[in-house]
């Protein structure tokens, strides 16, 4: 009997070990991908810097990669990305945070039950659909309305991108609000504060860094978005002078030009270098968001 028992026990141990290895492998797969991507980005983009100085690559005012000799300064693309992202934030922060506050603090049960799925559906629409909508609906309307030469410009891109990033901001901000312990609210109300005072003086400060995290992650989403801006931003690689200039952000540059760039050429490597820049920007954004949210959890005494 005992021999059989031991055998069974050994089998169980073996099985448990196998499961552990299986899941460990799966868990580490993403690490492998990350390392692979960073490695590729570096090896494919570094050759550019042997021909062009990093400063003139970053701050050069002209992007004519196929001219002879080529001009490869990505300053117009960087400024375009920042302009469009900043514009998108102007749209999505008030709408997103406002929506979260409404859902969390003011909405009745029915309004909440209606609004939450609406936001989730908005988040689930593929970006190409937003781009399409921006191109055929929003751009012509704005062109007529504002009397601008083309509706495909930084302004339209900001608007469409802002609407796209709204659900991210709204749902993360709502999470931040729901992390605020009910006891804070009760304490405030029990002291004779009204709802508005409780919201602005206790709940919002307590959720403040969580809401900032939501905003920053929304920004990350806007910076990295490709399809929409490719379709509505206009595509001109010039440093924008106004919001109504057509622009060519970093992401759409890669998407538009990767197909034509000869593999291994300087242009090809330059596109990878743009990719590396984007990666660094979004990495920075995520690190900032992580630091803020950690501070937030500490402040509420929720541990690390």
């Amino acid at each position: 009997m005992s021999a059989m028992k031991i055998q069974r026990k050994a089998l169980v141990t073996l099985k448990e070990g196998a499961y552990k290895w299986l899941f460990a492998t799966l868990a580490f797969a993403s690490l492998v991908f990350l390392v692979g991507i960073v490695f590729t980005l570096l090896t494919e983009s570094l050759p550019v810097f042997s021909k062009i100085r990093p400063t003139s690559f970053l701050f050069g005012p002209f992007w004519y990669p196929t001219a002879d000799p080529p001009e490869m300064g990505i300053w117009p693309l960087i400024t375009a990305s920042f302009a469009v992202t900043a514009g998108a934030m102007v749209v999505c922060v008030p709408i997103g945070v406002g929506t979260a506050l409404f859902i969390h603090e003011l909405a009745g049960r029915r309004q909440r039950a209606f609004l939450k799925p609406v936001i989730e559906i908005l988040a689930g629409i593929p970006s190409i659909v937003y781009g399409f909508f921006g191109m055929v609906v929003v751009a012509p309307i704005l062109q007529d309305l504002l009397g601008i030469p083309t509706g495909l410009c930084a302004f339209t891109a900001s608007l469409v991108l802002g609407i796209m990033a709204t659900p991210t901001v709204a749902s993360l901000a709502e999470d931040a609000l729901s992390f605020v312990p009910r006891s804070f609210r009760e304490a405030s109300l029990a002291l004779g504060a009204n709802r508005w005072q409780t919201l602005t003086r206790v709940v919002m400060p307590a959720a403040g860094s969580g809401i900032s995290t939501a905003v920053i992650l929304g920004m990350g989403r806007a910076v990295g978005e490709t399809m929409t801006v490719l379709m509505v931003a206009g595509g001109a690689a010039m440093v924008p002078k106004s919001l109504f200039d057509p622009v060519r952000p970093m992401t759409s540059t890669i998407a538009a030009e990767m197909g034509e760039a000869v593999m291994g050429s300087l242009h090809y490597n330059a596109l990878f270098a743009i990719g590396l820049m984007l990666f660094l920007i979004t990495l920075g954004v995520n690190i900032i968001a992580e630091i803020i949210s950690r501070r937030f959890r500490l402040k509420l005494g929720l541990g690390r």
Partner: protein
Amino acid sequence: MAPETKICAQHIDFFYGRTRALKDISLDIYANRVTALIGPSGCGKSTFIRLINRMNDLIPGTRVEGKIIMDGLDINHPRTDVVDLRRRVGMVFQKPNPFPKSIYENMSYGLRINGMKDRNFIEQRVVSALKKAALYDDVKDRLHESALMLSGGQQQRLCIARCLVVEPEVILFDEPCASLDPISTRKIEELILELKKDYTIVIVTHNMQQAARVSDYTAFMYMGELVEYDLTEKIFTVPKERMTEEYLSGKFG
């Protein structure tokens, strides 16, 4: 001399949806006395005190019948100013719940939401409330540090002080020592005995010894009903109801 009635509950019924959580509760709460509510979990004692400052309003789908009168004010009347009521009836919760702000900001909150701006006045009130709550000596050198740095017992005394700042008439304690160690508990109990000189106190407690130590009157509740209500010494020595006696002797609970 018979004590003056501060709060008078008349035939209170309370419903969570269809569940009747309180059944025909009538009792008088006397001014400058400590009234303890005891009974097993779920008997409705917390629900009852949360009616006195209308905290149950926050729970959707609840309904109250009957009247609670405080100094002539009909607490449940739809036109009663809830904000003003809550200024007159302070509450200390089961778990210490200081705001994630500095000690001073916690203390001044109740005054600032009332629109008080005079710094000297605020500081005076804050200091005097901290002294009343026997916390001043512990915190006087770190008033601008986070309240979350305090120990659990200190946090709870801060919550008491925070509610004293607005000078309420009644203080409701909802199991204030549930999460505290015996030493902190003793400090809170001493504080309650001190505070009853100036305030009317209602305390919900799980701890029968605590009720015996701090209260003048004790109400024993069971399954939403008020079984017995009398002077604490009578309840603990010569209870009239068999159920009270059985609960106090630990036969159920």
